[in-house]
């Protein structure tokens, strides 16, 4: 058991690391020194996090609370700097610090580029700062502190995406991420304002108190199905679409791949992007009150999962494939919570953190070995040269496509099944059809996932290495003539750990038809006590549907095999045959272009051509300058006084004042 105050150390240690590297040592810290400091801090945090988790295992273990100080207060409004660690929080803390630690260690090996020698301290400082912010996000006991973390991780993401800031495109990607997230944050704070207002005299920003208020006075937010609670939940979900990259705000995440690969693994796969799901789980007692909001979440999740997968199938940049895959998998998580399977969605957060962090780090290992090559068309055959990376990556692959026994299978299958049987939409229009449609969409996505991940595997690890021939064509990279080699141990070790977790992570929450099932469910029960969704039991379709999905997945893998291994000329032929579809997918369905033309350009042009050039410069200043000219003329007419005009005005003031005073005194 751990004392409450010790919990404060969990975020404090990474903050300390960020300060030591970022403010005290700076350039004096070499890669190894800065990386070691940063890793040790996160490692210690991880130890404490697991202690906290262990302490919460007991049957009636109370959440750990630590109140630091009153942050801001005016009238009845107040917010504290205070932490509250319950089962949900503790699990997230372990994921953040555990995977965070592995990625910190990995980064020591990864960031060895000579060009980064003088700025690598910045990298580790930001990385520590990110862990700190992410911990605030999950540990804060109130909305405002969560929001500090929420925007804080956005800041770190901004800094790390633009880590190589001298590249303008990278800097732009960072800015795009931040601003897109701000759109989501706008929605989030509006939801918060509405919620706070609706609670009237019971208004609070504290999660725990809010849960009690809602339990006793559900009428304050309109009761179950109330308009207010629906609006609040939809606005909160709007915030989640930013941070967790869902339609319509997902566009920043693929660009965010500009950051160093460990950043993609930590922030843009394992932790930050799952904040939206965490937030919904945190507020489960609110969301279950609004079937409309739940339906919106589930639908958005399923659609995002599908659309992102359709883009992933044609991308050639290995990180872009993984990025769209992440968007797609996040969609699965939203689908899970949207159909009422909060634990199922959250379980997928955990398994995805394992296998996606693994695959990003694996791709990093490849990119590192190939000297920053990210184009899969220039890879191939790597399983011969990078045996460990390949073996580890394979575990991630088997997990994400959902091969039985691997972690991803259990979490994804539970989401699919709960979607099929969910009772949450029963009262809504199309409420009985919707689960089946969503299930079909999600299953189609699962097949697409199996296809594009197989494509990635085959293009990268099978066939012959295509990088050398690229060099032979005289692009001036003669040094690349040698064959790719396995990465150093610092990179490989974290891969091995994550590979093991991806393989056996399913043990955390085995399905009900296996022994020792539902551990995570039981552990998280206290968190979801007000959000019980009564899923029907013993449906005879459960196994047939599972088998159907598995057959489909096997078919997808086989199809990818025929395309990318048996007959490598066929993809090009297929692309030619479905040219419109192929170009559309390759160009991400032109969503960025649409946003540019429909939103960004109009705002810029209106602001510049109308607001500034006409309203400010002509309309308002026209009046003002007219008046000024008039006054000046009057000044001149009455003779110049010492060449300065200010005296003229001074006299005007006095004269006017006297005149008016008299007028009023008389009147």
């Amino acid at each position, binding site marked *: 058991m751990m004392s409450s105050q010790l919990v404060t150390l969990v975020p404090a240690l990474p903050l300390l690391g960020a300060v030591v590297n970022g403010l005290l040592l700076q350039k004096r810290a070499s890669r190894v020194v800065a990386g070691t400091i940063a890793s040790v801090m996160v490692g210690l945090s991880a130890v404490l996090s697991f202690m906290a988790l262990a302490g919460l295992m007991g049957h009636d273990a109370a959440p750990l609370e630590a109140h630091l100080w009153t*942050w801001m207060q005016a009238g009845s409004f107040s917010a504290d700097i205070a932490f509250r660690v319950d089962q949900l929080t503790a699990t997230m803390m372990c994921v953040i610090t555990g995977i965070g630690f592995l990625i910190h260690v990995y980064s020591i090996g990864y960031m060895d580029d000579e060009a980064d020698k003088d700025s690598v301290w910045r990298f580790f400082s930001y990385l520590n700062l990110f862990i700190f912010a992410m911990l605030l996000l999950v540990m804060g006991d109130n909305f405002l502190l969560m929001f500090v973390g929420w925007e804080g991780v956005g800041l770190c993401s901004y800094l790390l995406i633009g880590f190589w800031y001298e*590249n303008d495109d990278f800097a732009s990607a960072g800015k795009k991420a931040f*601003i897109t997230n701000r759109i989501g944050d706008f929605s989030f*704070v*509006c939801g918060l*304002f509405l919620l*706070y207002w609706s609670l009237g005299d019971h208004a609070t920003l504290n999660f725990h108190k809010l849960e009690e208020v809602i339990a006793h006075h559900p009428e304050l937010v309109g009761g179950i199905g*109330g308009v207010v609670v629906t609006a609040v939940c939809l606005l909160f979900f709007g915030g989640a679409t930013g941070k967790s990259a869902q339609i319509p705000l997902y566009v920043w995440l693929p660009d965010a791949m500009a950051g160093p690969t460990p950043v993609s693994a930590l922030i843009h796969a394992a932790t930050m992007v799952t904040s939206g799901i965490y937030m919904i789980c945190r507020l489960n007692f609110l969301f279950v009150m609004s079937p409309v909001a739940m339906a919106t979440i589930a639908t958005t999740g399923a659609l995002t999962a599908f659309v992102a997968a359709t883009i992933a199938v044609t991308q050639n940049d290995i990180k872009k494939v993984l990025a769209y895959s992440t968007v797609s998998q996040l969609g699965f998580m939203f689908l899970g919570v949207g159909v009422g399977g909060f634990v199922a969605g959250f379980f997928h957060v955990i398994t995805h953190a394992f296998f996606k962090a693994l695959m990003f780090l694996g791709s990093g290992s490849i990119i590192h070995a190939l000297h920053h090559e990210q184009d899969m068309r220039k890879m191939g055959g790597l399983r011969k040269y990078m045996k460990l990376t390949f073996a580890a990556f394979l575990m991630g692959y088997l997990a994400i496509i959902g091969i039985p026994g691997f972690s991803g299978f259990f979490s994804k299958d539970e989401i699919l099944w709960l979607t099929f049987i969910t009772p949450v939409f029963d009262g809504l229009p199309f409420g009985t059809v919707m689960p089946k449609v969503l299930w079909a969409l999600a299953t189609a996505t699962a097949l697409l996932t199996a296809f594009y991940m197989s494509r990635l595997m085959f293009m990268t690890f099978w066939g012959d290495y295509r990088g050398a021939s690229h060099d032979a064509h005289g692009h001036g990279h003669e040094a690349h003539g040698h064959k790719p080699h396995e990465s150093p141990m610092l990179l490989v070790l974290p891969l091995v750990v994550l590979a093991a977790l991806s393989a056996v992570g399913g043990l955390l929450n085995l399905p009900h038809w296996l022994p020792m099932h539902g551990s995570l469910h039981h552990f998280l029960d206290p968190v979801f006590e007000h959000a019980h969704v009564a899923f029907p039991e013993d449906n005879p379709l459960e196994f047939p549907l599972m088998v159907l999905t598995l057959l489909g997945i096997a078919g997808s893998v086989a199809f990818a095999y025929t395309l990318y291994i048996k007959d490598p000329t066929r993809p090009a032929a297929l692309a030619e045959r479905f040219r419109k579809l192929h170009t559309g997918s390759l160009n991400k369905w032109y969503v960025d272009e649409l946003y540019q033309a429909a939103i960004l350009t109009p705002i810029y042009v209106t602001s510049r051509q109308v607001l500034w050039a006409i309203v400010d410069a002509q309309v308002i200043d026209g009046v*003002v300058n007219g008046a000024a000219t008039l006054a000046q003329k009057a000044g001149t007419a009455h003779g110049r006084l010492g060449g300065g005009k200010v005296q003229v*005005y001074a006299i005007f003031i006095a004269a006017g004042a006297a005149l008016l005073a008299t007028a009023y005194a008389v009147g």
Partner: protein
Amino acid sequence: MPLLSLVTFLPVALALLVAVMPKEAARSGALAASLVVFAASLPLWFGYDPAGAEYQFVEKHPWIESWGVGYHLGLDGVSLLLVLLTTALTPLILLAGFSGVHEKYRGYAALMLALEGAMIGTFVSLDTFLFYIFWELVLLPMYFLIGIWGGERRIYAAVKLFVYTVAGSLLMLVALIGLYWAHYEQTGAWSTDLGDLLALTLSPDTQKWMFAFLAIAFAIKVPMFPVHTWLPDAHVEAPTGGSVVLAGVMLKMGTYGFYRFAMPLFPDAVTAYGPVLIGLAVTGILYGALVALVQDDVKKLVAYSSVSHLGYVMLGLFALNAPGVSGAIFQMLNHGVSTGALFFLVGVLYERRHTRAIADYGGLTKVMPKFALIFMIMTFSSIGLPGLNGFVGEFMILIGSFQYAPMWTVAAATGVIFGAAYMLWVFQRMMFGPLKNEANRNLPDLSARELTYLMPLVILAFVLGIYPQPFLDRINPSVERFVARMEEHFDESPYSCGNACLPSWLSKETH
């Protein structure tokens, strides 16, 4: 000891001293003078009792007895913080002027100190006549600071500032005289004392025109849309120190005027005209942000961002509840810190390169890493990143204003998106990317002196963001009195809000 008189007139006296100092001693002399004033103002912070009387350190003496004019000074929590903001910024401004002001430093410093005294005077006056005098006195040093030490179009900018302000002042004068007359009518005695005037009962119609006149005068100073166009010109042409004092303190005279005079004197007019002002405040937030977005001149961009930020302050004041008004007051401090620092930073670059065009920069992080870090901190402070000062004020304002003006608040909240857009974009264009311009290759990073005047603001940005409560503790009791006075004049909601209220479908009944 009459502490308030001391803090008000000490800078004026020291200004005269600085003006006649030997040239060589002027810099250190002026800096020392401003530090003495700052030291003299510190007892106000420590001596002020948040739980104590409404006004503290009160000095009340008859002055022009036959007119009913008194010399009446006093300090509440709000004036306290504004006075300290003024006395704290002035030394930084004078220090920054060491390099920026090449000619006539003595005159510059003397005017700056005189300006400081006049501004403090406006914040501590509790007599309308006295207030009006200080209000007018502020204008003169500012006029000369821009007109003499300004840029190429300094005369145009100075005259524009003058025309705008004088127009406002005249309206204010009319309203104050009207009030003066009303006091005589009701009591048979002449008085310009704020306390006496607050005790009057005025018909709603009388309140409306008087409020309107005062509101226009104050709105020009804030500045609110659409009377803001003097500000970008004044900022662009003003020397760095002028811009800092303008943004840091002078604009707050407008919002302070609303808080101290226009709103408490005419509460019925507030409920009548509040929606108009809220509408203009929100328009200003968005308009300022959008126009800032398209600027080519970095100083103009920061100037327009001020229009946007002050819009939040106005919105908060008219929220008429504790979080909204306290947030607004707190935001006045924040804006002084963040925008003050941003103008300093722009000044640092201007001194090195003599250009304010954003396009002339790019990739500066490489050559000026310390500058880049501070610029970044202030950028995020300005866009309200939680953990820094801007967030506290902005959030309190919005959660407060949502209560009576929800749809306007939602519109205002979009400002957080545009704010991030214009600040991050300018930051990227100036600091990130390759170092394109050869002229920037050898720019020196911040000097020790520059760090000395920037660091206090950086530290304040963190302190105000992480531990704002000591400041809020001093603001809150005063704000609660203000809110209580306003609440006497309405029942459920101050505004019959029309389409600014929530749409009818958003009722709490289950559908």
